[in-house]
């Protein structure tokens, strides 16, 4: 019986258990003429849980352990001459072939007699374990059902138990979010440490040359992995982006919050939200196809050599992308400044712009700084726009009209292609990722702390 069919059957049994529990609770109530602690549905649910959860736990445990057990047994049975001298990869391939044969799939070149014999053995083992599993699960489910049903009584606080289970389920869901962060940090840390066994951290963090030669021969120099050109490229593009996004975004927010008539606000807000949702690859394509050539010809007119893919192109378009982000964050913050402060300034005879510049903005300053930091973090972590429009030039230079490489672009370059998780060329992607993560995390944390402190002022 396939796994899906098994689970489906279990669910059906659970439904049956629910029904039995429900009727039983009604019967008990009628028999003793008492009020049950909980509504019948809860008793039904509890019986179903007692029936299903142990069986499910058994299933999960079994599914994790059984294949490994079977593999072990099959390998034991293999003739020693066959396996002598095999390394790990060859063993894995052999097992895969045997597994395929056991499942009646074709393998390249047909199976050797030993493989076929082993496959037959494996097939028998698989059938055996499947049958055992079904039997065990059935037993566990039925036992659970019967025992639980017996316990249905007026004093049994079914609802409390069910709610406990629900709350544990909810809590485990939130745990997943935490595990994600832990997962990110651990996995990247692990691979990055492996990388640092090849290249020293000092060389990585302070190196000024990036030239990771993909060694085909395997023995010559691994190449140079200096972070600084990439870091500098990231900074250049981000700074250009922020120079575009911050003035435009902030002034847009101010205008929307203070000057715009209500109809304009209600039209513009959804538009800005939609803009924030345009995928970055669209911006990247736009940069490549429209902005790049435009800047290049502009440069020709003015007499500067601007490349079609350059830090300027990518930075400009990235700035456009971040404008809605800055604008909506700033708008939230500005509207949070209490009206009494504005009234105080206006009452003294200040014009609107004076009120905004001299009273509202200084009051909102921490929040706005937080918004800028978040925007910077966004710019630094952006990938697709730079992949398409910034060119590929991991060299330390100061010319925004030339191509650059950023950290994100390099990660993509290093990991596309052959994914050999043992070579420094692939592992460096994780070291880069870790650096990126730490930088953006730092910015985000500072921003959140700043904004929080600011909110406390007004609550």
């Amino acid at each position: 019986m396939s796994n899906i069919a098994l689970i489906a059957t279990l669910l059906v049994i659970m439904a049956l258990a629910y029904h039995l529990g429900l009727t039983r609770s009604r019967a008990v109530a009628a028999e003793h003429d008492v009020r049950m602690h909980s509504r019948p549905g809860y008793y039904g649910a509890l019986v179903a849980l007692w029936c299903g959860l142990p069986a499910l736990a058994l299933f999960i445990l079994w599914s994790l352990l059984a294949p490994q057990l079977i593999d072990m047994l099959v390998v034991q049975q293999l003739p020693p001459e066959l396996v002598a001298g095999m390394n790990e990869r060859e063993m894995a391939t052999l097992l895969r072939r045997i597994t395929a044969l056991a499942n009646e799939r074709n393998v390249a070149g047909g199976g050797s007699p030993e493989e076929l014999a082993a496959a037959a053995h494996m097939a028998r083992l698989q059938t055996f374990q499947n049958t055992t599993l079904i039997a065990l699960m059935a037993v566990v489910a039925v036992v659970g059902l019967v025992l639980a049903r017996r316990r249905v009584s007026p004093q049994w606080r079914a609802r409390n138990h069910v709610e406990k289970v629900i709350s544990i389920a909810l809590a485990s869901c939130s745990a997943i979010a935490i595990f994600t962060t832990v997962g990110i940090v651990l996995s990247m840390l692990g691979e990055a440490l492996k990388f640092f066994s090849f290249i020293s951290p000092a060389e990585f963090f302070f190196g000024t040359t990036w030239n990771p030669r993909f060694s085909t021969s395997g023995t010559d120099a691994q190449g140079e992995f200096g972070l600084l050109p990439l870091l500098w490229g990231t900074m250049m593009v981000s700074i250009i982006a922020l120079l575009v996004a911050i003035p435009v975004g902030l002034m847009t927010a101010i205008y929307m919050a203070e000057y715009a008539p209500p109809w304009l606000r209600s039209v513009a807000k959804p538009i800005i939200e939609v803009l924030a949702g345009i995928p970055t690859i669209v911006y990247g394509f736009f940069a490549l196809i429209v902005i790049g050539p435009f800047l290049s010809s502009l440069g020709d007119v003015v007499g500067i050599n601007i490349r079609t893919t350059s830090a300027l192109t990518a930075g400009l378009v990235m700035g456009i992308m971040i404008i809605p982000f800055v604008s909506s964050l700033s708008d939230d913050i500005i509207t949070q400044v209490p009206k009494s402060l504005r009234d105080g300034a206006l009452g003294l005879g200040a014009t609107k712009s004076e009120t905004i510049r001299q009273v509202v903005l200084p009051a909102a300053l921490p929040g706005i700084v937080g918004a800028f930091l978040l925007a910077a973090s966004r710019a630094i972590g952006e990938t697709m726009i730079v992949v398409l429009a910034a060119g590929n030039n991991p060299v330390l230079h100061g010319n925004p009209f030339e191509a650059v490489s950023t950290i994100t672009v390099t990660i993509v370059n290093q990991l596309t292609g052959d994914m050999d998780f043992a070579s420094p060329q692939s592992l460096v992607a994780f070291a880069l990722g870790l650096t990126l993560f730490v930088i953006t995390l730092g910015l985000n944390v500072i921003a959140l702390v700043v904004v929080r402190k600011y909110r406390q002022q007004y609550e």
Partner: protein
Amino acid sequence: MNTSTEPKTSPMVSVGAGESRTSKATDTVKMSAQNVKVFYGASQAINGIDLDVYENEVLAFIGPSGCGKSTFLRCLNRMNDTIDICRVEGKITLDDKDIYAPDRDVVLLRAQVGIVFQKPNPFPKSIYENIAYGPRLHGLAKRKAELDDIVESSLRRAGLWDEVKDRLDQPGTGLSGGQQQRLCIARTVAVSPDVILMDEPCSALDPIATAKVEQLIDELSESYTIVMVTHNMQQAARVADRTAFFHMGDLVEVDSTDEIFTNPQDQRTHDYITGRFG
């Protein structure tokens, strides 16, 4: 006019014994409202009010909640302009010039008619900066020394100088409630307006702070015309030369404070001050 032959009744609202205010009001009409109506969107809040404000007097607006006193007060320096759905009709003059005329500069108006709000709203700046903001804005001080003078004299007038003279660079928001309100009064005074509007200035303060502010109002009326909204009838009796009673958007009657509280002409006024409704 009351032609009753009964002896003059004692004041229906007791004024503190031994207190007698000497009014500093002149006969000049400083501000005048003629048939002023105010609308919030479609609903009408003020129904055609005529009122004169005399120079250097203290004029109190009293009346139950929601009767329009604050709304009318805010018309006097066009603070209602900041509310989109608010519309004002009629004529209000300052020194015989219509303040709602299209060529009238609101900024200038507000430099002449200042306002103190119910809840103290000092800027999140230093005490010095709070006071200096207005004069600096309008270019009233050319040099730092002049600005220092203005700050000191404003704080003295507000009776706050001795308390804060050693900590002028501390944030204004760090003061107590009563001090903050006096700071706001000092801030308004620093611009030397002709008229000071006060919207329930003491309602957020404790009794001691309230007493201080009331004393301040009395002193300020020597140089400024003061129009204040108050919820507290005793307060009106204590500080105001004239009192105007508002009810449901109408100006019911306005007269000297003594007359209003001893001899109200309108039944509604009578009911209000005897506590029939709040």
